[in-house]
């Protein structure tokens, strides 16, 4: 799309350099750990070495004897205020600090409050806890077996570890289709537990001012407004009233979904500040972060497809066991316990589909946040894209041809999926065609055939994903009952400059730039003169925050709608100033002019000045607007990715030779920022595909609790990503935009896995669970007798 505005205005389509860079480049960003208040105390947490154990005693005497240790907070203390348990976002319960027993390794057991960070850590070492180990359940299948130890015996009447069953689609119709199908394929696919591992860990500074009873919390949160309401609801009984709670989400060092939930550490810090009246800082260290918070996935999927011998796909059936750890603290819209997993039919026109999920408690930390994706979308996309490849290979069809044959056609949009989603727009064939052209698909297939004849292993993998973002329409989407709208409050100053405040919170996405460009697009005020603020609940309008790629689809739309309200008023003022009727005015970005005599015009700056100095009698002065945007639908970005790999038969190492990503996120606000989002998203697709995994041994000990063991990709492993775009605007979004931050994380793992399996299909390899590590590949090469 060609920009409609000049570079000076900098509306949509301009690769405007980022406004937020000025402070980050100088080391002047303000992150939570940079907050330092007079008299501030430091909190550090004692954590459980056991995955399941009774707490027999906690002896704090040695810790309290250390000069500078002021208090040790325990579950017993919090119990006096009924704050030892808290609700999760999915209305389950989670311990703030335990009274009876611990349920996972790394769980918070007690907290030490001290005058310095180092003394607090000394105090943690000195707290003596006596445990009595209990039987540990780490396997969700075993957890669901009859006779398994009941982990949540705190819940009266509970006799098993089954949390919920959820299903969607047409069970009988799908079964009939499978029974009558010419071809069926079936595969177990596991998406292991992973951790978002943002480079900034979680933390907060809580400051309860006893004088006025006001609580201010600087907090690593992606959703400050919802957090304020949760605090008011959970701690209202101890006197916290919502007007006296201020949540400030300052600069955030990466979120990726990990900073959506409320973790016990935040609550303990708030409680400690309320009890002492002093500001209290709690900052997770990396091992705490990797062992207790921010976990995603852990989905065991049995996937099946049915279709015809000519490659026509007909039916889909997924049966899934979800390992949630000891509580369901997933971050999903409340009506959807498995999130948007039912996007599983993807880009293909299935006749019928059925999907079911059973969730289990285990002795692991709470899981189920989204690792840079909307609510279980990666799980769904990985399964469907793997299965389509398996189906194609079984029929000896080219996976690209099979996809083209089954894609939902461009003229079929808006398309109603078998699970009831209405896809807004798409051109899947166009994206795949472009990706094939960019990578030279046909030549690569020829090269692969030649190499295979020589015994070399080369693979080509495709992923043609459909994303689902921008939650969501209030009819269906809420978090703890709060509808998933988002908001913008826009004020135009007398000199024609603006401030726009939003209910979201950037964690690196560049909102200060992108949102300013949206206002610039709609009003013609140069983006450099639009200040953007968010993250402070005392000043920003209420919104549900930034996750699930919802900032542009929801808050960005609110910005456009608020600007249009301002423009409507500006038109009235312009008509008054130019002494014509409103209908006689033409708008172009930045000014109204009289139809037929364009020299008679008023700029938005002149109109803004008049709004405060010469407004029409009978009209309110000022020029501002608020919009709470309730999206009519979700948006459905999509793309086609193609990955080429070469496998070293000596070591099992997979080398990504090339990776072409064609994305379609509708109309683009800032192409530079969109490309940056895709690069980062691809790298967080590569990570779980090849490196990242958090396992537990039979005793519930974490394997992968440090960055030595949990392999976040470095610059050496990360390929030089190649990106391209098609553009299919969203018909219902005011700007035609769709959201893009997570598409690549959703789409990339399947392209990589498909490429590796494609390289070895002729050896009889049908599937490899991610992460595809050299030892896994090497073992297969040994089994197939081709290792060198």
């Amino acid at each position, binding site marked *: 799309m060609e920009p409609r505005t000049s570079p000076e205005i900098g509306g949509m389509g301009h690769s405007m350099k*980022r406004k937020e860079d000025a402070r980050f480049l100088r080391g002047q960003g303000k992150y939570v750990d940079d907050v330092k208040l007079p008299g501030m105390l430091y909190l550090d947490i004692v954590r459980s070495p056991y995955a399941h154990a009774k707490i027999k005693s906690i002896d704090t005497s040695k810790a309290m004897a250390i000069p500078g240790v002021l208090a040790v907070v325990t579950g017993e203390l919090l119990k006096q205020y009924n704050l030892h348990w808290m609700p999760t976002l999915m209305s389950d319960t989670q311990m703030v600090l335990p009274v009876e027993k611990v349920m996972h390794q790394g769980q918070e057991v007690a907290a030490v409050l001290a005058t310095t960070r180092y003394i607090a850590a000394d105090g943690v070492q000195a707290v003596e806890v006596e445990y009595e180990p209990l039987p540990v359940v780490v396997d969700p299948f075993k957890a669901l077996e009859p006779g398994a130890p009941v982990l949540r015996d705190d819940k009266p009447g509970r006799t098993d570890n089954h949390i919920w069953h959820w299903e969607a689609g047409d069970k009988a119709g799908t079964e009939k289709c499978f029974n009558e199908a010419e071809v069926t394929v079936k595969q177990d696919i596991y998406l292991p537990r992973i951790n978002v*591992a943002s*480079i*900034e860990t979680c933390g907060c500074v809580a400051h309860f001012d006893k004088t006025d009873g006001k609580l201010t919390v600087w907090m690593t949160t992606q959703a400050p407004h919802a957090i304020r309401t949760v605090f008011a609801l959970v701690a209202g009984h101890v006197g916290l009233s919502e007007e006296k709670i201020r949540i400030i989400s300052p600069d955030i060092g990466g979120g*990726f979904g990990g900073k959506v939930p409320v973790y016990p550490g935040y609550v303990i810090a708030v409680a400690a500040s309320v009890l002492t009246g002093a500001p209290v800082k709690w900052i997770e260290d990396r091992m705490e972060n990797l062992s207790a918070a921010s976990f995603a996935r852990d989905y065991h999927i049995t996937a099946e497809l049915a279709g015809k011998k000519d490659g026509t796909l007909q039916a889909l059936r997924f049966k899934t066991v979800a390992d949630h750890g000891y509580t369901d603290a997933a971050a999903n819209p409340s009506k959807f316990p498995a999130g948007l997993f039912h996007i599983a039919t993807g880009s293909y026109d299935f006749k019928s589909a059925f999907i079911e999920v059973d969730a289990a408690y285990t002795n692991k930390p709470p899981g189920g946040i989204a690792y840079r994706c909307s609510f279980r979308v990666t799980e769904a996309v990985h399964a469907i894209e793997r299965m389509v490849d398996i189906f194609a290979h079984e029929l000896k069809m080219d996976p690209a041809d099979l996809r083209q044959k089954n894609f939902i056609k461009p003229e079929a949009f808006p398309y109603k999926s078998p699970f009831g989603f209405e896809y807004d727009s798409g051109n899947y064939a166009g994206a795949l065609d472009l990706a094939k052209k960019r990578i030279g698909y046909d030549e690569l297939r020829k090269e692969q055939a030649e190499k295979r004849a020589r015994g070399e292993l080369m693979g080509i993998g495709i992923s043609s994903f459909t994303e689902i973002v921008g939650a969501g329409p209030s009819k269906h989407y809420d978090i703890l009952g709060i509808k998933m709208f988002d908001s913008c409050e826009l004020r135009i100053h007398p000199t024609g400059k603006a401030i726009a405040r939003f209910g979201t919170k950037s964690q690196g996405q560049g909102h200060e730039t992108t949102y300013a460009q949206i206002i610039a697009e709609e009003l013609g005020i140069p983006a450099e003169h639009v200040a953007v603020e968010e993250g402070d609940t005392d000043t920003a309008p209420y919104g549900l925050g930034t996750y699930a790629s919802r900032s542009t689809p929801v808050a960005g739309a609110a910005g456009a709608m608020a600007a249009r309200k301002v423009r409507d008023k500006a038109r009235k003022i312009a008509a008054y100033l130019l002494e014509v009727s409103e209908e006689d005015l033409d708008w172009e970005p930045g000014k109204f002019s009289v139809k037929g005599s364009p020299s008679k015009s008023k700029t938005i700056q002149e109109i803004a000045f008049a709004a405060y100095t010469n407004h029409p009698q009978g009209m309110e002065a000022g020029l501002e607007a608020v919009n709470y945007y309730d999206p009519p639908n979700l948006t459905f970005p999509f793309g086609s990715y193609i990955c080429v790999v070469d496998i070293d038969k000596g070591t099992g190492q997979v080398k990504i030779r090339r990776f072409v990503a064609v994305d379609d996120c509708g109309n683009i606000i800032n192409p530079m920022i969109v*490309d940056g989002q895709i690069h980062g998203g691809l*790298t967080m697709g590569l990570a779980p595909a090849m490196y990242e995994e958090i396992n537990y041994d039979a005793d519930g000990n974490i394997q992968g609790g440090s*960055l030595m063991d949990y392999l976040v990709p470095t*610059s050496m492993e990360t390929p*030089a990503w190649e990106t391209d775009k098609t553009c299919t605007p969203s018909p219902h979004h005011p700007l035609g935009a769709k959201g893009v931050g997570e598409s690549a994380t959703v789409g990339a793992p399947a392209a990589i896995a498909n490429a590796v399996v494609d390289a070895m299909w002729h050896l009889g390899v049908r599937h490899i669970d991610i992460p595809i590590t050299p030892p896994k590949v090497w073992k297969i090469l040994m089994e197939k007798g081709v290792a060198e």
Partner: protein
Amino acid sequence: MKISVNVNGTPREADVEPRLLLVHFIREVLNMTGTHIGCDTTSCGACTVLLDGRPVKSCTVFAVMANGRDVMTVEGLEKDGKLDRIQDGFHQEHGLQCGFCTPGMMMTGYSLLKNNPSPSEADIRWAISGNLCRCTGYVNIVKSIQHASQKPAQ
């Protein structure tokens, strides 16, 4: 222990515990918060500063080890109100998103260009391999350092 560290050209004196980490000395004693902490285990590189001109991870250096030595942090890059070429490179090529790894990444890039004025892409990728970034996928960080390498050093 009393130490004197020359930080960005200014001598800074303090009485510190022997166990105090250099990163905490910089952030909490000197109140210069541009240097970040991402892991405490020398894995992520968010805390990278230059010690006598060489990049070190300041979470794994004691403050007392910097006694009598030169430390350069992100706050020392800008000179006379003018951004260093490495800062400008990151801005021009969109080499940063959340900004958390950026100070460490720029210090590593700054040091690379001192020692290798015209690095190849492979040189750059090797040099920054001790600095993790979760946002950018490194593509634009490589371009940022290349961009800086084409400008004269200050």
